[in-house]
């Protein structure tokens, strides 16, 4: 009975403070806000799939919108699709083509498909691209993949709407990962809600311990990379904010290599 009551309370909470809000219009398209980084060490790629055609529809173009680290629009570009082939987008190439210099070395981008398959309308649903980003580091030829995890932003006729829910009260997201002693990490947080977020990162070796690692304000669509260097003991990370779920992207470093995953 207590278990059922708990489930009911969770449903109540999710109804008023959903993980993902609905877009304004049924024809809106949705995308994650994918993290890109480009500098002398990093290249970023996106595997653009023709998900409209995968769903039995027809589409020849998608749109990519770039933002800087503060969430400001950089540029928009239409991408031609080639049937059902995948298109590997080299983010450095797209930035260079649009005259974005090396002073901006990271940010986010969103992918919107320009048509909607019938089945999406018929199912009262929305088309969403949470596809696959990959990163190449230093001399390695291997790209490391991570999938999109948020239905972060919707594009209607002329506007963008941030879709991640905000909670009335502060919520904690505990990264279910053991950060290892002597290792270094980067924690990437993106604010995909429609209001500024005060975020607190708490690094500890127990979920109830007190030391605060850092607190910062994250404007709408902005991102922050928090560096954790050479940890002196195995640790856990929790993130406190009003985001209904503040899942980070984690880069971990080991010798000359790195790994990337969604928290």
């Amino acid at each position, binding site marked *: 009975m207590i278990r059922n009551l708990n489930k009911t309370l969770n449903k109540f909470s999710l109804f008023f403070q959903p*993980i993902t809000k*609905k877009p304004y219009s049924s024809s809106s398209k949705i995308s994650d806000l994918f993290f890109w980084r480009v500098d002398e060490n990093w290249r970023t790629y996106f595997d653009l799939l023709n998900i409209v055609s995968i769903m039995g529809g027809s589409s020849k173009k998608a749109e990519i919108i770039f933002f800087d680290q503060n969430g400001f629009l950089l540029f928009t570009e239409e991408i031609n699709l080639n049937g*059902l082939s995948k298109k590997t987008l080299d983010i450095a190439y797209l930035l260079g083509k649009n005259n974005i210099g090396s002073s901006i070395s990271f940010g986010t981008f969103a992918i919107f498909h320009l048509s909607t398959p019938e089945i999406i309308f018929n199912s009262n649903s929305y088309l969403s691209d949470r596809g696959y980003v990959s990163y190449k580091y230093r001399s390695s030829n*291997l790209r490391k*993949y991570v*999938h999109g995890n948020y239905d972060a932003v919707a594009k209607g006729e002329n506007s963008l709407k941030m879709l991640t829910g905000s909670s009335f009260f502060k919520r904690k997201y*505990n990264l279910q990962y*053991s950060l290892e002693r002597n290792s270094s990490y980067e924690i990437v947080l993106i604010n995909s809600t429609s209001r500024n977020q005060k975020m607190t990162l708490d690094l500890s070796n127990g979920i109830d311990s007190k030391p605060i690692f850092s607190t910062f304000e994250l404007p709408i669509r902005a991102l922050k990379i928090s560096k954790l260097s050479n940890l002196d003991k195995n640790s856990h990370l929790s993130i406190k904010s009003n985001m209904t779920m503040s899942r980070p992207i984690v880069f971990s470093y080991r010798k000359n290599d790195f790994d990337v*995953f969604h928290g």
Partner: protein
Amino acid sequence: MPFYPIIQAPYCIGRTVVHNFPANNWEKFRIIDRYVNVTYLDKGIWKSETIQKIKSGQSLGFSKNDLGFDNSNESPILLSLSDYIIQNSEHLRIPDISLDATYYPVHRGSIKLISDYTSTSYQGEIIPFPSTGSFLSFPSFIQKGMGIENYMLLLNIENEPSKRKEKVYFFEANTRNLMGSIDVFSNYLNLIDLDQFCFDSEDLPIILCKKMSFVPLFFSTEKKGKFMSLEHTHPPASFAVHGERFLIQKYIKNFWFEELKI
């Protein structure tokens, strides 16, 4: 009933870390010491036993060797958490090891592959599939280049402890060409060399099986374990949000099963 598999791949050992703390602070999760259990197949029977106590707030990692399994053992090795001790139990269906875990997100483990040089991981879990399930995936992860190898790890776990055999088909999406097929087994981590199918770098593979479901993991390595990447694809329902997503998934599966005449 999430399980946390210990996986393996060429040039690596698998190590899975389980965590006795919740992913959030707003769903119910009792802050108590718990037990780590291992579940595996032995002579056609599911066996489970507690291996270690795990303190509240603690993370513990295990490889196959830590648990006394050698690498030639073909059984899936599944970790789980429980509030109670399990003593050498045997089952004709996989045991329902209950845990009041979070749903947003599902309580997850860190599933790692470790080579002599580096490691790669994803955050995941597996919940046993119905034996009536099917599988459709559009992975874009195949990489080309000197010294790069690409593998798929298809992990199936079902309630019944049998080892069914089914066929998985590999198509190229644009031409609908069948690039190959391969036998796979239930309750097994099926390792498949993707380079044998000769996909081009911009090809989109369609991988499907009409009679078995899997967690599809994609592992790429450069220079035999010096650099590694591990990621999984989402099920087709992930192309949609809100509404009747699983109707959409059914529609996409039916569309491609008919289109490819499988």
